[in-house]
């Protein structure tokens, strides 16, 4: 079992868990992920590493409540434990001195962009970050991201905070007006990453995305995480999760992510019933 050293509520439905996993903490790098299982009946799901502390022997992940597993996780508090925590998996994000890098974080992905932006800054890059969310209540870690960026632009879809609109608008301006952007890192929902890649493509600015297909083992054993990049099938868990966003077959990724949509619904409804009964 892996103990939750601290649970922090980042928004009403996004929680950070600092989990005791010294061996993983020793090896974790920005961009890598872990596979977790909440309990004996649980499924294995991948979560990107948000932060780690080698000294303390802990790894932090941020989780948004969406389906059964993430809701089940949301029932756990500081001091509870989860059944499995495997990592660090996947290849770390390439960190070099590129010049100016724009880091785009969509929604709760700010948690995983943060260590990447930090590492890029440490490597001598000028880091401009764009943080986007649907509305103000979904924003968190703004100060953290600002502290590792030379410049931070915040957008909300409804204009309740920062600039009104989507992250692709400031991204396009930065690339087309300044023309000094050497690299883009875009992490968030697949659809956001797709549009970031489409935005930068005409300008030929390399755009790295972190793909999140369905996974089982996370070690290259099942092929569930297959994605198509540049017309070649790759296993996201071992060949990625980072890929060149201009080469990704986004429609395939989006379709494969929907494989178990019916089952997920069924499982979640069952969880809701159980949960309601337990609360009573």
């Amino acid at each position, binding site marked *: 079992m892996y103990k939750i050293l601290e649970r922090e509520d980042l928004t009403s439905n996004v929680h950070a868990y600092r989990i005791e996993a010294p061996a993983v903490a020793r090896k974790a790098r920005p961009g890598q992920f872990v596979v977790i299982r909440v309990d004996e009946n649980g499924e*294995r799901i991948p979560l990107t590493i948000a932060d780690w502390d080698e000294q303390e022997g802990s790894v932090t992940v941020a989780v948004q409540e969406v389906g059964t597993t993430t809701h089940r996780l949301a029932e756990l508090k500081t001091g509870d434990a989860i059944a*499995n925590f*495997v990592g660090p998996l996947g290849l770390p994000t390439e960190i070099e001195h590129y010049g100016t890098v724009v880091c785009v974080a969509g929604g709760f992905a700010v948690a995983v962009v943060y260590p990447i932006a930090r590492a890029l800054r440490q490597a001598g890059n000028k880091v401009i970050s764009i943080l986007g969310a649907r509305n103000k209540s979904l924003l968190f870690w703004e100060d953290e991201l600002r502290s590792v960026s030379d410049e931070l632009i915040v957008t909300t879809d409804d204009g309740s905070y920062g600039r009104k609109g989507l992250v692709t608008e400031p991204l396009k301006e930065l690339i087309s007006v300044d023309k000094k952007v050497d690299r883009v890192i875009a992490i968030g929902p697949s659809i956001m990453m797709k549009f970031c890649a489409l935005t930068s493509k005409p300008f030929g600015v390399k755009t790295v995305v972190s793909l999140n297909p369905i996974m089982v*083992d996370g*070690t290259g054993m099942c092929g569930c995480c297959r994605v198509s990049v540049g017309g070649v099938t790759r296993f996201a868990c071992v060949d990625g999760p980072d890929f060149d966003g201009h080469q990704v077959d986004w429609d395939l990724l989006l*379709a494969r992510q929907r*494989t178990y949509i019916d089952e997920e619904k069924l499982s979640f409804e069952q969880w809701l019933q159980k949960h309601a009964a337990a609360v009573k």
Partner: protein
Amino acid sequence: MPKLNLNRVEMPRQEPKKRGKNFQEVAMGYTPGMAKEEALRCIQCPKRPCMTGCPVMVDIPDFVKALSEGNLPEAVKALKRKNALPGICGRVCPQETQCEAVCTLAKKGAPVAIGRLERFVADWERTSKPETSPAPETPPAPPSGKKVAVVGSGPAGLTAAADLAKLGHAVTMFEALHVPGGVLMYGIPEFRLPKEIVRNEVDYVASLGVDIRLDSVVGKLATLDELLGDGFHAVFLGTGAGLPMFMNIPGENLNGIYSANEFLTRVNLMKAYLFPQYDTPVKIGKKVSVIGAGNVAMDSARCALRLGAEEVNIVYRRSREEMPARKEELENAEEEGIEFKLLTNPKRFIGNDKNWVTALECYQMELGEPDASGRRRPVVKPGSEFIMETDVVIVALGTTPNPLIAQTSKGLETTHHGTVVADEVTGRTKKPGVWAGGDIVTGAATVISAMGAGKRAAADIDKYLRS
């Protein structure tokens, strides 16, 4: 010479209709009376040909004789001298190409049912009271002060870990998954190998003092050099051949197309057959197509049937004779209603606008000249394409070793098939202090050959650590 008894005693099995709907074990095992009757058929050949057919040289005539005399503790002792996992081997070894193939009575078409007897003896030991089962023959050796890392907890790793622990070494076994046992747990289904039996064997290995670390991916958590620098005096790699092969034909990434590894892992390891009680889902499918005809294909097909598929087809490009699956499992599959589309090979997968697979386009094949494997090579019949409807496809075309460890460590030589180069007898790799055995060296093979390799490597590691 007494008259030869050529009536092999059949082993009771669940009725095909019934078993096709549950995940309980198909074969139910001999009763004591049946076991004795079958054991009495052995003529105790002085030259012991059966032993030469066994990759670990089990003292077959000895355990069969003890069994025929009703001396079960003695039978256990004789059997376990060479084979630490008889309950598993008795169920999954391809006896018909090993010991039973060379049994003297095979010439008369009725070899002694060595596998069934092995299973009977192992089950007796497992279920009988501790007082009646024999004490371990050799007490564990005094601590050697040496530490060994065993990577992977499949049959190769389990065997190596057990032997090394018995020899007095401190063994840590690293396993990537959340459950130990390798293919025995995630691949071979419950109805062929109850997980209870595997857990028993793992518990036994743990009871010898082996420290089992789950959720530990070597190559990620630590490289081989880090293990060797971190106090381990030797490393044994038994990480198997876990990387699934696909066909590289159009449409292969459609939804509903699984590698056998994924399908079986979902069903067996993650218990998707109990969804939604367990969280992991799997698509059940009405018309399931399984591509390939080895044990893995049969297991996939039979799992799909048990999940509730209406029709399950094995699609295989050669003919019946070339099918690599164990004969017994082929017959079981056929009885359960699995259909065989032989001399058939997919050309592409066809999908709908939601990216779901809806059909296979296949070629009809015919057999040509023998190829390198000695089997007649299937060739495409021109213009023979036809469409086969399907909503779930399971690709069971084999696996190769996962490159994760080789990629992250210098000095480990691999072949172009991805297998690790190791001495056939000792298991030594080209990297000092590192041994390997099982599927990682041979490519996908058998449980017993992986065990044999684990055993030989353990002996050589012991020699190395003491020199």
